[in-house]
């Protein structure tokens, strides 16, 4: 369904060494008013001068360009190995039909692009910068994670549409989204009654939803595909590319 490409990565691990605003809370008992918690931190720092730089070793961006494998293993210690999503392994290089190769520059040359990404068999029409509120809480993601949607049924620009049969090969395009938080709906109360009974049961529900932001929607150019080792195959008796309309 989706593959996690970039994760919290090294940032969280390196930040472990960095002091934050609260580090020693055992002082609470003697000091009551703590309107500046930073004060506490400095007292602790004086006692054990640990790091020369008081700043977490964070890269400028959350999208660090670290290798994929070790980030997954580092940040996912809590999740058992068999439940971790596996990176897609492709046994054969992508096969692209000749007509697709011919039409692809037209699609690439026309911006902007949209993608109909599918998530749990539901389509989402996305462009760059869109705000998504998934109708469910996505498990095992954290705020700030970057996901890559790899299942799309269509990708297009104004005049051209790349259609999959039924899904586009995920090596043809890139669609990245960032998890920006979790929202919940207002509390709903439904009154449940039974016959001949004065008791009214109140069923409450307050669902939580994952919010995301589309970072980019990009279709790869023919040169990029050939660089990645795409194989161009002849398409035999395909119907003409411009579909006949009524």
């Amino acid at each position, binding site marked *: 369904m989706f593959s996690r490409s970039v994760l919290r990565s090294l940032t969280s691990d390196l930040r472990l060494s960095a002091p934050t*605003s609260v580090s020693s809370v055992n002082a609470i008992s003697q000091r009551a008013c703590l309107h*500046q918690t930073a004060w506490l931190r400095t007292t602790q720092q004086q006692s054990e001068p640990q790091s*020369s730089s008081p*700043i977490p070793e964070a890269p400028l961006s959350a999208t660090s360009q670290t290798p994929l494998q070790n980030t997954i293993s580092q940040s996912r210690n809590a999740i058992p190995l068999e439940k971790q999503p596996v990176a897609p392994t492709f046994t054969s290089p992508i096969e692209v039909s000749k007509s697709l190769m011919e039409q692809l520059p037209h699609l690439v040359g026309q*911006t902007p692009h949209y993608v109909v990404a599918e998530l749990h068999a539901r389509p989402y029409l996305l462009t760059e910068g869109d705000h998504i509120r998934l109708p469910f809480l996505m498990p095992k993601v954290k705020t700030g994670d970057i996901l890559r949607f790899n299942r799309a049924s269509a990708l297009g620009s104004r005049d051209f549409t790349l259609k999959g049969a039924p899904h586009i090969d995920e090596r043809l395009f890139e669609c990245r989204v960032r998890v920006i938080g979790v929202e919940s709906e207002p509390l709903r109360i439904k009154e449940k009654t039974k016959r001949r009974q004065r008791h009214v049961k109140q069923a409450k529900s307050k669902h939580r939803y994952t919010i995301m932001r589309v970072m980019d929607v990009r279709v790869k150019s023919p040169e990029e595909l050939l660089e990645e080792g795409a194989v161009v195959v002849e398409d035999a008796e395909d119907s003409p590319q411009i579909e006949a309309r009524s």
Partner: protein
Amino acid sequence: MKRLQLQRWSSTVLSPRARTSNKLHQHLYSASLRHQSTVAPLQTESPTQNVIEDASLDLEDPELKLRLDSVHKRKSQLKYPSPPVNAAAESAKLAALHARLYLPSRLPLETLARTLVDVSADPNADFNNESLATLGHDLLTYYTSEHLLATYPRLPLTVIFAAMYAYVGPKTLAAMSKEWGVDVASLPGGEVDPGFLQFKRVEPGTDLSKATKGKGPRPYAEAKNWRKTVTSKIFYDDEFGDPIKGSNEAGAGVPDELARATAVRALMGAIYLHSGRPAAKLFFQQHVLSRSLNISQLFNFSQPARDLTRLCARENFEKPVAKIISETGRLSRHPVFVVGIFSGQDKLGEGAGASLLEARERAALAALKGWYLYSPLNVRVPSSMEEEGAAPWKPAYVDLGEVIS
């Protein structure tokens, strides 16, 4: 190109107070930092202080000593108009801001604190953000203008001014600092948490247009009725096409928007000084270029049909002719005409309107926007050549210029 050691440069630009804590230099900048300060201390030290200090040496009671220490600390804080350097490391707000923006670790908290001190709060140039803001403003406007010119090479200059204002104008930068969660201190001072933005507010009732002293570089600026050409704006005015104003009077307040914008510019300059050009450019791309702007909404034409005729004459196209593509309800109360502008057999633009005149104007406008909003494929900006291992530079598309009528 060889990478330059910016750490070395930064020592010449930054005051010792704001420099990274280097072990070699630590002994130099221990306690008395403001020995070069041109400002008189706000509170003169009372002669009784020494007496208390002497007495405190004899005291063995740790609680009293602690209290005395805090009193002394507060006094030393009040001595300066902006928070002292060592307060930066203790501020939780500042550390949170640093982490929230994913700033590079080479940018110390002390410099971040300095970017939040405006000139109006601390007139000492070694401790306010003015110098950093000058550098940051130049970087921001350079990166924005190169992006605009490379992406839309045919934009008219007035629209470029508007787009620059939309990307890095004071209003946008102020909104950005609000979205970063930078709070404003109600009054600047040495005792304020350095995580707050500090500036002196404008007195109510001040006329902002007359608050500046000195004058800009434009000659005869006081002649109100003189025509200001767009070309003269390139020479005499700033990046947004506004006249350059003289510096503010010393001690005068700053509007909230301007102080916030200055702080953002200063942060950009600080990132450049401490972590170098790649980090600064990445910061610019992530925070400024990632915002959304619809450039086609920045145009305001007064005579689109005339401009289009001029354009076609200049480019040696056939004369543009307006033709009705489709229409409905000509004799009804709500007619709709769709008019296309054709040059020979090619359609240049198309517009719909409730009258033939409106549809024709809109079609001419669409054609002109189609001309001005041309964007080449695979845009590269000149500063991308500064990256290591960059592909050889291919000349970017340069246009003849806008249509002048």
